[in-house]
């Protein structure tokens, strides 16, 4: 119950902030742009195509640019903003003088981060549905209600979510560690751009930002099926390091 209350207080902190709008706008940007394009050029998902893998094709069209580019940049911004909510008005001292354990504070904030990420993936699912359904509804006057592969799409979303975890791990660590917003953004963008340059390299898995690219490419150099295990283990390691750094910080506000 205490954790739920801490979580509710953390959720209240982001109410009306740019975080929520950033997540919604950032996620729906590509599906909506593609939907408008499809309507404009008369491209739509007919019933036959919907029954035979058309939905997955729509997903791939959205997922490729989204997972490779928008999601990493979004994760950089969201992690930074979660920490900045406290840094901006020197609120850490207020947070750390409330009767909450450091573990509870750390976990409540992390949970908000995952709730936002969960929202992003739900919106992505909605975006794929809009992309498939809306042009068909407008152009055909019918609804491609058949064949929406909710199970297969959920599986894909889970895989892309795991591929994202190392980015969340590193960015949350940097954002909690440094009060200056520019440090976390700078580190994130530098790693992101650096990863793009070396993603084909054998050891590129060292970069937390490489896993979304592996997801898009369908494999990881030489490691293939172990990619998700690596991503999850990397995330766990970063989280443990982050937690130790957080609780052992000499000045807490």
């Amino acid at each position: 119950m205490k954790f739920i209350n801490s979580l509710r207080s953390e959720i209240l902190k982001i109410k009306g902030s740019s975080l929520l709008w950033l997540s919604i706008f950032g996620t729906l940007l590509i599906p909506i742009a593609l939907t408008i394009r499809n309507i404009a050029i008369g491209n739509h998902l007919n019933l036959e195509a919907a029954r035979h893998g058309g939905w997955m094709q729509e997903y791939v069209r959205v997922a490729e640019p989204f997972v490779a580019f928008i999601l990493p940049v979004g994760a950089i911004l969201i992690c930074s903003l979660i920490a900045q909510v406290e840094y901006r008005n020197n609120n850490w001292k207020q947070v750390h003088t409330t009767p909450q354990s450091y573990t509870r504070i750390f976990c409540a904030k992390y949970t908000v981060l995952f709730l936002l990420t969960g929202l992003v993936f739900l919106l992505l699912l909605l975006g794929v549905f809009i992309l498939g359904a809306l042009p068909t509804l407008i152009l055909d006057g019918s609804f491609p209600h058949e064949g929406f592969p909710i199970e297969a799409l959920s599986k894909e979303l889970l895989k892309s979510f795991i591929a994202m975890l190392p980015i969340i791990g590193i960015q949350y660590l940097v954002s909690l560690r440094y009060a200056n917003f520019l440090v976390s953004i700078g580190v994130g963008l530098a790693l992101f751009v650096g990863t793009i340059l070396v993603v084909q390299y054998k050891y590129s898995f060292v970069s937390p930002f490489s896993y979304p690219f592996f997801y898009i490419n369908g494999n990881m150099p030489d490691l293939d099926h172990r990619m998700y295990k690596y991503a999850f283990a990397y995330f766990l390691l970063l989280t443990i390091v982050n937690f130790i750094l957080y609780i052992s910080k000499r000045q807490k506000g």
Partner: protein
Amino acid sequence: MNSIEIRGLKYSYGKDDNILKGIDMSVPKGSIFGLLGKNGAGKTTTLRLVLGLIKKQKGDIQILGKSIDKSRIEILQNVGSLIEAPSFYAHLSAIENLKILQLVYGCADSRIGEVLNLVGLANTGKKKVGQFSLGMKQRLSIAIALLHNPELLILDEPTNGLDPNGIVEMRELLKKLNEENGVTIVISSHLLAEIEKIITHLAIIDHGEVVFQGKYSELKNLKQKNATVIIETEDAGRTSEIIKGLGFSEVKEVAGAIQLEGADKKEVAAINKQLVSSGIDVYQLKFLEDDLESIFINLTKNN
């Protein structure tokens, strides 16, 4: 019983930066305790250590009878604080800011309205805290500190940014909380005049050491002992000799009058008798500095 008990508290930010050099301090339960000192004396560091905001290096801190190392959460459930600048979420209203803390403290929803009324912010509605004036923000910080009905209130320079009316209101509020609810209040300031009207006890801290600690009345007695007296007579030269003859060494002649340091009221009366019996006409006897500023300066100067 003491609400705060500090023994041998030392803290340094670096090898040669010993900000606290072994503080011993006791805050009696039910008191309004002033923590005084110049900027950089170590007041805020002491309060931050008390609240666990910085890691203790040496010494012992007991709050409400418990160790801050072992019972941090239990202690913080009964402590309200305001350290340095006010903390709040600028994109939220005052009610939303308080709601965040109400959830964490687990206190009644009704407390939000009560504390907003108490600090005069009940009519701010949906206005974002970022649009508040500095005084309003300071009052909101007090409301936050009071939300969970704390036994102990720790306020670091709470009158910063308040106008004279705001300062008077704040004083009245703190007095009321102390008298009616029995809240122990620790209030730090570098301006003695600001808090001398409400404090019952105080500690003066300078260069990381406590140079005075006790009841406010004890400091007032000390003040009388250290007061400067101006004595104006028909013959300053002879007056000076007579006073020195009585064993006073801090005697100066300033603009035809005598300036005497370190004499209390009884001693001044004795000097007056001696002067009159020596045939010297005494025109004026006057104690200078009726506030605590001079004693504060003397204590920190000696240190």
